[in-house]
């Protein structure tokens, strides 16, 4: 019956306006269908339709480098068009060396974080050693399998004893990936662009923190569903350390100021260079032909 409503709209256009030339007939649409060329042009018609499946209103990321793992996330929890909570916490420490970022429905995320924490603690008590990150990812993946439709995604960031820094992506549809840079959420394409550009294995801690911060900042600028503050965790062999939560609103104005200062400096330099060139010769010299 969703199909019929849609067809009704199309025929109204046919009768009343010239729009029927622009819009080909609607296709019957399931909720999560693969987008086609036609459907992307209709995103202006229905406000909740998206050009491709934008996975959840958040930006979280994790990457490894020579001195551990950085996990960063924004703090905005949105519900369609409303910001439910501007100061939510999306990165949850599981134990001293494992941190998980989640995206998806906040309630589901909190539940799975809690379940994972207590399952890992049980494992540690039973087997007298900590579960490795691969094991934790497999455990989470197996636990999520019966809830495939739930649509939560998790990034597990850890610094293991033998395995070193590891970051792992677990999705409720079953996809499980290990990598060097992972980003999840509606702001992830923007974050990937910044991370791919600036990531090197040999980064210093300051460079890595700055990169993560910038990635989240750019994503929050362009993505409506990410924003407010940025949380950053740095995990090393000694455990995780949390950087103070930073409000990104200020960062936008600071960057604007920095850019305008830079433009002024370049303008001055350019004028100075032109002044020098003019001053080199007499104005009545051969240059004036």
């Amino acid at each position, binding site marked *: 019956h969703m199909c019929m409503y849609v067809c009704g709209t199309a025929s109204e256009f046919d009768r009343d306006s010239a729009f029927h030339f622009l819009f080909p007939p609607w296709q019957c649409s399931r909720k999560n269908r693969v987008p086609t060329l036609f459907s992307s042009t209709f995103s202006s018609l229905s406000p909740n339709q998206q050009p491709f*499946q*934008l996975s959840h209103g958040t930006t979280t990321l994790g990457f490894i480098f020579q001195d551990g793992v950085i996990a960063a996330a924004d703090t905005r929890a949105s519900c369609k068009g409303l910001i439910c909570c501007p100061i939510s916490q999306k990165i949850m420490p599981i134990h001293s060396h494992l941190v998980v970022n989640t995206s998806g429905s906040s309630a589901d995320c909190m539940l799975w974080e809690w379940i994972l924490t207590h399952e890992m603690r049980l494992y540690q008590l039973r087997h007298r050693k900590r579960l490795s990150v691969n094991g934790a990812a497999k455990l989470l993946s197996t636990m999520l*399998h019966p809830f495939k439709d739930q649509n939560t995604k998790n990034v597990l960031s850890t610094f293991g004893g033998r395995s070193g820094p590891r970051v792992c992506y677990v999705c409720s*549809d*079953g*996809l499980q*990936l290990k990598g060097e840079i992972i980003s999840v959420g509606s702001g992830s394409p923007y974050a990937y662009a910044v991370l791919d550009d600036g990531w090197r294995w040999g980064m210093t801690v300051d460079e890595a923190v700055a990169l993560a911060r910038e990635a989240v900042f750019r994503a929050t600028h362009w993505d409506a569903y990410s924003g407010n503050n940025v949380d950053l965790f740095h995990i090393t062999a000694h455990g995780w350390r949390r950087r103070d939560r930073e409000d990104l609103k200020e960062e936008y104005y600071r960057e604007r100021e920095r850019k305008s200062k830079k433009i002024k400096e370049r303008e001055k330099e350019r004028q100075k260079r032109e002044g020098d060139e003019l001053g080199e010769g007499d104005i009545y010299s051969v240059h004036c032909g």
Partner: protein
Amino acid sequence: MEYLIGIQGPDFVLVAADNVAASSIIQMKHDYDKMFKLSEKILLLCVGEAGDTVQFAEYIQKNVQLYKMRNGYELSPAAAANFTRKNLADYLRSRTPYHVNLLLAGYDETDGPGLYYMDYLSALAKAPFAAHGYGAFLTLSILDRYYRPDLTREEAVDLLKKCLEELNKRFIMNLPSFTVRLIDKDGIHDMEKLPVGPK
């Protein structure tokens, strides 16, 4: 969006799979291995829905290894293929069907090399060459034209390269690299990854 291809020669099977692990429009990983080693001379290539591939392939993998542990000898490729098909068919009409497309390639001492094509409806066919994915539409006719039952290894690799060049030229998705493996009487050999440069 994913691509699998297999070519059977007189005494070997050549298989290749792309290396992209994607989620919506993002390539999350560029070096993802879609091949699962069932035994010393059997490979299972698996593509399809995100979680189902790994779950199903690992299930089959562990069961084949369990057979070896229990009975002391390995399943032949034909037996493994039929076992896989039976499992897929059983799950098909359950509440949790697995949406996976498979290629099973193996070498048997008595029967020689074998390439088995299986799709998500658990149709099984032994074929001299096969491909899965949208890329199959572009490459099956190339395989048709140039395949001969008595290909040498070099000729098979050249045929594979022809297919991948065509993909690079006409396929809308960018598939930058492919894992290539060859199975013969000595087991599974990794061949160099084929990066086909843009034309």
